[in-house]
């Protein structure tokens, strides 16, 4: 026990002095996720915001349809007057100086007054996905304007305008603000599991192949300490770095998300101290398992370089269940909670959704992860007893 503590303290301090380990485990790892994540989120938010707040519409001959222009301007549409003809509109779309151009033909006013269908021409490029929401918004506004005129005309003629709407489709959005935020926040579990891995990768190598490459493994094994005690000290140090990385990443994620104004878009991300602690607590049981996994892989490698290559592949393993979960749209069930990393994903999303978590689910998730961790540690211990560890 004392030897384990000695090994732990030494590994912890030694790696704290290694600039590469500190950078990777405690700086780059915890910063990378939050930065990428908040950029993605920012981008997603920008897209929703730009459509609803600031729709720009170029109009040829706006004087021909003053009421329509007033209607659009009253609904946050910026109407820009341009001069020219259909060819001008076409070229503006092609050279991207406008997303949509509305042409008001000369006969629009007279035909509207006489009650015959009044033509309006909208120039758009339907192959541009980035404009789709913008264009859809304009179409909706113009359709609503037409609807409004139709209603007035029918009312004037003493006809109930409801005759025009034999069927009403009402779509009910059952998403809560928190669950809407989750569409993007679902990525959070991915970054958290990844941060656990990056926190331990250097120590897993350093305490196995690294020790062998430097020629320190043999003297270490010749000390009057059991190999299990040595291994436990090393694993403990690896776990500590993983935990630090996880905590720092979660904190950084929350700081980054806090800077984004999620509420403005009807999202409440449920980001408080308690949530952060809950996320760390449900993810932490993964740590011994992943530490043992990486140590096992690193101990099999013949050189540090080989270990690096294998650990790169190993990093994918715990992230695979997350990909499956989102592709297959899996819902948490008791059997699925036995799968490490997938069960953590469910618990993380559950907490973010502000749902009441099933205590049994938590128990199964924590229990199965820890149990598999212990099993894997036992396997690593067997590897540590093999002579081939030395060569």
């Amino acid at each position: 026990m004392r030897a384990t503590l000695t090994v732990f303290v030494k590994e912890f301090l030694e790696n704290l002095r290694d600039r590469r380990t500190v950078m990777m485990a405690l700086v780059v790892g915890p910063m990378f996720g939050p930065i990428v994540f908040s950029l993605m989120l920012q981008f997603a938010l920008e897209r929703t915001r730009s459509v609803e707040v600031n729709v720009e519409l170029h109009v040829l001959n706006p004087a021909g349809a003053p009421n329509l222009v007033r209607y659009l301007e009253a609904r946050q549409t910026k109407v820009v007057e341009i001069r020219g003809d259909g060819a001008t509109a076409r070229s503006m779309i092609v050279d991207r100086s406008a997303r949509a151009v509305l042409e008001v033909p000369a006969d629009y006013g007279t035909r509207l007054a006489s009650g015959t269908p009044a033509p309006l021409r909208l120039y758009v490029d339907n192959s541009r996905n980035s404009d789709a929401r913008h264009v859809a918004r304009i179409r909706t506004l113009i359709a609503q304007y037409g609807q409004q005129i139709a209603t007035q005309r029918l009312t004037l003629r003493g006809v109930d305008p409801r005759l025009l709407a034999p069927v009403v489709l009402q779509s009910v959005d059952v998403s809560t603000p928190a669950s809407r935020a989750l569409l993007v926040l679902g990525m959070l579990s991915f970054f958290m599991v990844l941060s656990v891995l990056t926190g331990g990768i250097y120590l897993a190598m350093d305490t196995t192949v690294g020790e062998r490459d430097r020629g320190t493994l043999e003297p270490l094994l010749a000390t009057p300490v059991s190999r299990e005690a040595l291994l436990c000290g090393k694993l403990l140090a690896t776990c500590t770095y993983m935990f630090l990385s996880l905590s720092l990443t979660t904190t950084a994620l929350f700081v980054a998300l806090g800077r984004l104004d999620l509420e403005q878009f009807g999202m409440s991300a449920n980001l408080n101290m308690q949530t952060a602690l809950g996320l760390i607590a449900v993810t932490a049981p993964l740590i011994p398992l992943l530490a043992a996994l990486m140590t096992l892989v690193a101990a099999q490698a013949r050189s540090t370089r080989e270990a690096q290559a294998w650990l790169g592949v190993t990093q994918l393993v715990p992230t695979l269940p997350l990909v499956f979960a989102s592709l297959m749209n899996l819902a948490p069930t008791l059997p699925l909670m036995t799968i490490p990393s997938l069960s953590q994903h469910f618990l993380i999303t559950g907490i973010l959704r502000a749902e009441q978590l099933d205590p049994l689910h938590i128990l199964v998730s924590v229990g199965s992860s820890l149990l598999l961790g212990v099993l894997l540690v036992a396997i690593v211990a067997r590897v540590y007893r093999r002579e081939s560890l030395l060569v």
Partner: protein
Amino acid sequence: MKRFGGVQALNGVSFRAEDGRITGLLGPNGAGKSTTLRILYSTLVPDSGSALVDGELVDQDNYAVRQRLGVLPHNAGLYPSLTARENIEYFGRLAGLSRIAARRRADDLLALLELEDIATRRAKGFSQGQKLKTALARALVHAPRNLILDEPTNGLDVPAVRKLRALLMRLRDQGQCILFSSHVMQEVALLCDDVVVITRGTVVAQGSPEALRASTGAQSFEDAFVALTGSPGDAD
């Protein structure tokens, strides 16, 4: 007996290293010196046969044996981001010394091996000599009764080798049992009280350097070594 895959590394190695004497394990490269020593300090397990230290059977779980063993493996390294002192104290702590005892012991060894000037420097940029001396101090930190050194003079310059020699003789005179391997016969002839000549995994001769020379009828110890191992090419 020790076999690695299809390679018979050791086949009938039997010898004794006495307390208060320096025993040299002499043999050409690949003769099985390191394998023999590794079995003695229990990082390898023999396929058949046994190794005893102070009359006790060596195995991976016999910590008491390793407690009395100071080991300097072949090409031993240091932890590059720990200082010389920390490298030594770490092994003292692992051998069960208290923090204070380990520090005091490191002080003594740093003085003994003239390492004071690098005591607080990190091992990263150490010269071969500084590295070896630190590794030797690490092996001696828990004051073991028995010392196993695998080619300790590798890469050392002449003054450093002389100092090491003087140190080993002092330890011997204090009654320690010292076993070291080498493929340099002059060194063995100068330092050892007993010599065990090993080649292709088998002990071919043992005795004092003088007795070995006499038994082969050779003029010099070098000739005797060549006559015994039959492989002048390997014995640089």
